[in-house]
């Protein structure tokens, strides 16, 4: 899995005691935006055959932003592949270091590491909140998730929120 928000969500749900399947569903839902990025990128990248399978793994927030910010298609392609390869290597190296380092930590709470994931999600969310409607949706989703949390298994509040926001998006005029 190479799409950060999904990775964090899966780990977050399982870490909170939720089912891995609820976590997997949340991860896949968060990954749905990459399909839209793929549409934006497909004409720019113009990839076929095995290159399309390689390029697919690199379709994420950062590579899309870097690619569509260039004016010339060759520069876009260069930005996409360079960002993708660099992020893929460093991101996964970071994940590996984190996985190995946990064995050295006896109590992550002393370092405040339980406060890190919400801050990370907030930092991922912030660039998407530059208008009033997304901000209202974010607040409503947060309140709803907290409201249902005591009554359903861990991870399920995310799925309730995903269902309702999808209904809202589809039914809204």
């Amino acid at each position, binding site marked *: *899995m190479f*799409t950060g*928000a999904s990775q964090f969500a*899966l780990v977050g749900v*399982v870490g*909170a*005691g939720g089912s*891995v*399947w609820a*976590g*997997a569903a949340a*991860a*896949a839902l968060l*990954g*749905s*935006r990459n*399909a*839209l990025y*793929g*549409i934006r*990128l*497909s*004409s720019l*990248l113009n990839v076929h055959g095995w290159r399309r*399978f390689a390029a*697919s*793994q690199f379709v994420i927030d950062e590579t899309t932003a870097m690619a569509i910010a260039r004016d010339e298609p060759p520069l876009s392609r260069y930005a996409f592949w360079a960002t993708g390869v660099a992020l893929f290597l460093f991101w996964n190296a970071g994940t590996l270091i984190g996985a190995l380092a946990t064995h050295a930590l006896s109590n992550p*709470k*002393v*370092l*405040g*590491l*339980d*406060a*890190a*994931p*919400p*801050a*990370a*999600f*907030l*930092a991922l*969310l912030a660039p*998407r909140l530059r208008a009033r409607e*997304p901000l209202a*949706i*974010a607040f409503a*989703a*947060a309140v709803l*998730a*907290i409201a249902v*949390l005591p009554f*359903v298994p861990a991870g399920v*509040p995310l799925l309730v*929120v*995903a269902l309702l*926001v*999808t209904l809202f*998006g*589809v039914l809204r005029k």
Partner: protein
Amino acid sequence: MIWAGVLVASVSCYALKLAGLSLPQRWLQDPRIQRTVPLIPIALLASLVATQTFSTGRHLVLDVRAAALLVAIVAVVLRAPFLVVVAVAAATAALLRALQP
């Protein structure tokens, strides 16, 4: 079991990317899809912020993580880089815990 879930999630995430690059453009250009899909990460990320700050398991709790979130919000408003936002939040929680009797 946990690795089966990780594998399914990974394959799903990859398949969504491949679909975006491969499916006929008009399939995914329905206006309802175009305006709904960007809302999903907003709602889910906001839910994750809220649930991971104000709960432990299925219990609602108010602890140092709430203060850490406030500091993180300030950092985000000041346009601090990702790692700085995460680091100041963790440092706030660690400091408040160290100060607690």
